């Protein structure tokens, strides 16, 4: 017992030491990466009720994968969830807690889904040619999402990403290959495109209060709000009563069998 306690204490001390050493290294690495990062990709997600969430993803290099862009956006507070389709890659099932829950296959034959769009400067929005795991975005492009029904109207692209990211940025340093670790800067979300002050690289602009955080919180709260305790009590009583009846019937039948 004493030996186990001592081993646990030693492990805890070691972990604490490693965390203390690792944190400044990570910070400095991030700082170095941010200093070098100079390319931007905007992420725009439009909910079914029209509310829009935007993020500006900063990275170094000339291109970034859509999956990596979403990962960076999630670090800036844009929640999303995916399901793996094996060799076909990942499918996005939930963005910013919409829908509150989803089936293992991501959607059903009738449920809405997150349609993926890609923006190219001068060309506007177009439906993505591939999925999250296969699409690559160049600097200045935008990744768009819109939660739409499987049939009927309302399936257009999200609002324009103009203004989400700083328009004037130093030309990216030509590097071979894909981007390195970058950062995502949260932008205050609006109900439509509007010019915003551009934060400098590596600094996250504090978001002014908008309706978006409350809506997001409401979406989260709605998904986790429990049914009344009276209803649960009723369900328990009903289930218990039926189980007792079934047990009584089974005991009665056993005597005959």
């Amino acid at each position, binding site marked *: 017992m004493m030996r186990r306690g001592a081993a646990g204490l030693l492990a805890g001390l070691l972990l604490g030491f490693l965390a203390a050493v690792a944190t400044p290294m990570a910070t400095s690495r991030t700082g170095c990466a941010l200093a070098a990062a100079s390319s931007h990709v905007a992420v725009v997600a439009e909910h079914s009720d029209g509310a829009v969430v935007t993020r500006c993803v900063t990275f170094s290099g000339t291109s970034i994968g859509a999956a990596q862009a979403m990962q960076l956006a999630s670090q800036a507070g844009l929640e999303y*969830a995916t399901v*793996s389709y094996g060799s076909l890659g990942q499918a996005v099932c939930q963005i910013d807690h919409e829908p509150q829950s989803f089936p293992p296959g991501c959607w059903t034959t009738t449920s809405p889904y997150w349609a993926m769009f890609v923006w190219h400067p001068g060309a506007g929005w177009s439906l993505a040619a591939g999925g999250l795991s296969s699409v690559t975005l160049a600097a200045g492009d935008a990744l768009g999402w819109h939660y739409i029904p499987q049939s009927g109207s309302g399936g257009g692209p999200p609002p324009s990403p103009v203004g989400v990211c700083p328009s004037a940025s130093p030309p990216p340093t030509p590097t071979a290959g894909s981007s390195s670790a970058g950062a995502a800067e949260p932008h205050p979300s609006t109900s439509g495109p509007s010019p915003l002050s551009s934060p400098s690289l590596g600094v996250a602009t504090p978001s002014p209060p908008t309706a978006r955080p409350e809506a997001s919180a409401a979406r989260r709260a709605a998904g986790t709000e429990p049914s009344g305790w009276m209803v649960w009590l*009723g369900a328990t009583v009903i*289930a218990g009563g*039926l189980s007792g009846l*079934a047990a009584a019937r089974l005991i009665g039948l056993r005597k005959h069998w």
Partner: protein
Amino acid sequence: MNTRTLGLWSLAALGAVLLTNDPVYRAVILLICLNVALEVAPAGLRGLTPALALTGLGAMLMNILLAHSGDTVYARLPAALPGIGGPLTVESAAYGADVVLGLWAAILSVAPLSATDPSLLVDALPRSLERAGSAVAAALQFVPAVVHNFGAVADAQRMRGWRPRGPRSWAEVLVPVMVDALEDSIHLAEMLEARGYGSGPRTRYPAAAAQRRIGPQAWLGLAGLAVFFALRLAGGMPQWYPLPHLTAPPLSAPGLAACLLLSLPAIRWRWLNSTT
């Protein structure tokens, strides 16, 4: 509870199970159907238990091994394994349990009908469906008859020195079985013709008319199904999924009330039996 009432109640219970994927509602309906099955067809339920266990195990394993979504990982299979490789999550197991509940509830909702005489089932059908019901009943009777014939012919051939020696040798059994099946269908046609089948509306003894009255259990069950349907349309019965993380299923008082409407045959019957 006459056959017609039982049939309508089974339909209502099956419809309710298919309209919701909430595990609490499904569990309650499962318990209701179990009680009714224990009351109506206990012997049939005994034979159904291995099938229920097998389907439940299969559905559970499929969801656990093939669905790798969810936040709570409790084990990992090597990614090299095709299809099943990857993280095993609590959420996938919960979804599998939900599927099993639905399967069992659906099977048990119609299990009592399996104990009913097929002629009573045909009697319970509305006039417009009597011919279709007769055809289905005849087709369903055909299968056990063929199985019985197969066994009898195989035994008879073995006594004559026949032994299975590959696919071609089975022709000595299959041909007589087919001939017997054709003879049985000709006999059935002769019997139907002798009873004036197709010459006019189906007649029945006056006593059987009482069997066609729809009891309150069926009406209440159908009312429960209507409540389920209305709740789904109005959005008061959202679908439950355990992804991305496990949450408590949403319950509502109207949904529970609809389950209660379905449960009356399970409760009232017992009370009736104990008082008569």
